[in-house]
């Protein structure tokens, strides 16, 4: 490979006021099968629609074979799309649907006149040419003999095939597929995955595929682009993405993972679950890290032989393996194994160094821009919190009128003072009583970390995030209020010159 057929350079997209894609850059090699993977609302479909030309980027460039096509209308782009809900023309039969693109097409034909001069003419394809191409496309998707059928009489799977035929019959340079298998049942989906992969091999064109199904992405793609929150989280081959996830989001989204907090205790040594393990990643000593261990990388053994010891609390048969949940101290670990264990059984566990993936935690503390109010509270993240403003000036106190009295006896009015607010991950709690805390928001992410959950609550207005740990189980999208104890809000002045 090598030739970049499509390249996105710093593409940003706003819908109205909402940022849906934030400075996305990547390239696609010619002939590659690339998948945009992410939860719904992560911007993957928007990216695809911008390549197709249905949406235009707010800023940034889309290059096709080196040429900027960011603002070219869809009918001028050499790409074709297989739509999520197929978008077949209901008033046309199978043949007419597939021939639609061919009938729009004009090709340059070269002729020679009597004087021997050659000239070119833009012409439609002849009926015979169209018929022949449609026939070939129908053969590729295995629908020979369906020409005259009304598309509305076809099953979901057959409509899917017609949609694919309608796109590939135009011989596009890139085929875009927007969650094409989403509406099919599991068995049909598996079959189509194989067929699509086979089609990709046979046609030799570039496939750009959008899905939220991580298994589908791992099975089919040459390259996966993992997206979340309008940001590219990681780009890599399925193996890299699975084995070396770039952050806890990717680890959590792709496959099952045990995610825990760990500390580096020595050269390539990490401590988690109360034990020290050898690992391959090199970090500074005393660094806090996120530890990711895949369930199949935990090996069970006799209790006395394992570095970790625990008690089996549940065993679920999953077809090809058992999913065994083990309680190790206060941690819960999930193991996948072809061997079964009894619930209540004591087992030992070992993890080899290459099964331990370490990554720098994205969040170590919460930082906000805040403003001190008249009442000596601090306003940030759409809310108002009680705080101790005397920490800004050592030795100061607040008098009866609410002025800050410095150690020198000088009185200060802090109203409107801009401050940086810092809150630790342990210092936030939430409540479903809307008025209990200083601000409110929705839970947008929950990651289980062995013995606790890491939650992110995002406020509705300014979309500030509160990252914290909790032992309680919440649901994503719960509407909660954020509580921070007065003494846990650390303030520092932004304008240091005023500091006496």
């Amino acid at each position: 490979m090598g030739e970049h057929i499509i390249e996105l350079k710093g593409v940003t997209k706003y819908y109205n006021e909402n940022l849906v894609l934030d400075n996305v850059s990547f390239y696609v090699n010619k002939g590659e099968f690339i998948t945009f993977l992410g939860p719904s609302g992560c911007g993957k479909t928007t990216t695809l629609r911008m390549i197709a030309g249905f949406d235009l980027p707010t800023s940034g460039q889309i290059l096709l074979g080196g040429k900027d096509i960011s603002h070219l209308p869809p009918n001028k782009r050499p790409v074709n799309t297989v739509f999520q809900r197929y978008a077949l023309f209901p008033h046309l039969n199978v043949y007419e649907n597939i021939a639609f693109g061919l009938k729009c097409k004009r090709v340059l034909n070269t002729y020679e006149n009597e004087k021997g001069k050659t000239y070119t003419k833009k012409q439609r394809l002849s009926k015979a040419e169209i018929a022949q191409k449609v026939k070939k496309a129908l053969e590729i998707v295995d629908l020979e003999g369906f020409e005259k059928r009304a598309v509305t009489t076809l099953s979901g799977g057959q409509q899917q095939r017609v949609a694919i035929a309608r796109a590939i019959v135009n011989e596009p340079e890139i085929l875009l597929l927007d969650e094409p298998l989403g509406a099919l049942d599991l068995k049909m989906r598996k079959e189509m995955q194989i067929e699509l992969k086979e089609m990709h091999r046979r046609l030799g064109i570039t496939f750009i595929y959008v899905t939220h199904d991580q298994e589908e992405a791992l099975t089919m793609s040459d390259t996966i682009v993992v997206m979340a929150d309008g940001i590219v989280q990681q780009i890599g081959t399925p193996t890299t993405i699975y084995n070396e996830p770039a952050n806890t989001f990717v680890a959590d989204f792709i496959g099952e993972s045990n995610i825990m907090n760990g500390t580096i205790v020595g050269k390539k040594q990490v401590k988690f679950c109360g034990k020290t393990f050898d690992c391959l990643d090199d970090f500074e000593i005393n660094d806090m890290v996120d530890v990711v261990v895949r369930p199949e990388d935990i090996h069970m053994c006799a209790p006395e032989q394992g570095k970790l010891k625990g008690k089996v609390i549940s065993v679920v048969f999953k077809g090809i393996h058992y999913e065994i949940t083990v309680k190790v101290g206060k941690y819960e670990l999930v193991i996948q194994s072809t061997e079964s264990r009894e619930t209540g059984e004591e087992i030992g566990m070992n993890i080899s160094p290459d099964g331990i993936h370490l990554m720098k935690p994205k969040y170590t503390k919460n930082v906000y821009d805040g403003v001190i109010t008249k009442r000596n509270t601090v306003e940030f993240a759409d809310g108002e919190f009680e705080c101790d403003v005397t920490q800004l000036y050592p030795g100061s106190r607040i008098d009866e009128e609410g002025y800050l009295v410095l150690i020198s006896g000088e009185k200060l009015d802090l109203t409107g003072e801009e401050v940086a607010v810092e809150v630790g991950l342990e210092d936030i709690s939430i409540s479903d009583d809307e008025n209990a805390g200083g601000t409110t928001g929705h839970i947008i992410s929950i990651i289980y970390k062995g013995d606790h959950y890491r939650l992110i609550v995002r406020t509705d207005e300014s979309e500030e995030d509160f990252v914290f740990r909790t032992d309680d189980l919440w649901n994503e999208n719960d509407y909660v209020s954020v509580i921070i104890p007065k003494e846990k809000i650390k303030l520092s002045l932004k304008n240091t010159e005023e500091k006496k």
Partner: protein
Amino acid sequence: MTKFRLSRKSLCIPYAVFLLFFVIAPMLIIVFYAFTDKNNHISFMNFVNFFSDPTKLTTIVYSVVIALITTVVCLLIAFPVAYILARSKIKRKSVILLLFVTPMWINFVLRINAIRELMNWMGLLGETNYFNTVFGMVYDFLPFMILPLYTQISKIDNSLYEACADLGGNAFTSFFRVTLPLSMPGVLSGITMVFLPSMTNYVVSDMLGNSKVTIIGKFIETYFGTNWHMGSMIALILLIVVLLSSFLSGGFREENTRRTTA
């Protein structure tokens, strides 16, 4: 006391009674009058008379022509309006739609009288009788064309337009190969809702055509003053024409809805 239980079937009793007294009975009476003479003897003379009288035949032709022109003009005005309203992303399009439809809520006779005054003031009354009639009918029936078209065009999934553009179609292709064929059911129901009433609505032709334009509805009205038997016959013939045309467009419509809604 036994408890009276209202079954679902009994809900249709009121309508059945209504149907019997106000639809079926009058129809039978019309048929009876149409095929009898003044002495209430069975007679086919009304039928023979109708088709041997050139004035009556030309009136039928006039009615059809006026209705046709009205329908075509309505369609030509309504389609762009409905298309733009349905496809544009402007806010408050319901308000704009409402503006087109509001005249329907004002009394019909009042509206026609207003137009008559307007035409009188412009000096058109009594001068351009056929134009006036068609103008009045278009004004009157336009909402009935816009509404079904608007509904139908709004129903067309945006992804179909995207698919069309994706396959290389330009604006022209998009209109003629997506919008137009898929809005046919709306076009047909619009036609039915404009063509049929405009063939029988004699109030408009009476008031705006200065009583110079006689359409079949007017004819029936006149006859019911003097000769109920002939009047009934004309009414019956009109009914058959109406049934025939609605059968034709209705047949089309069923075919089309089957293909679009599935």
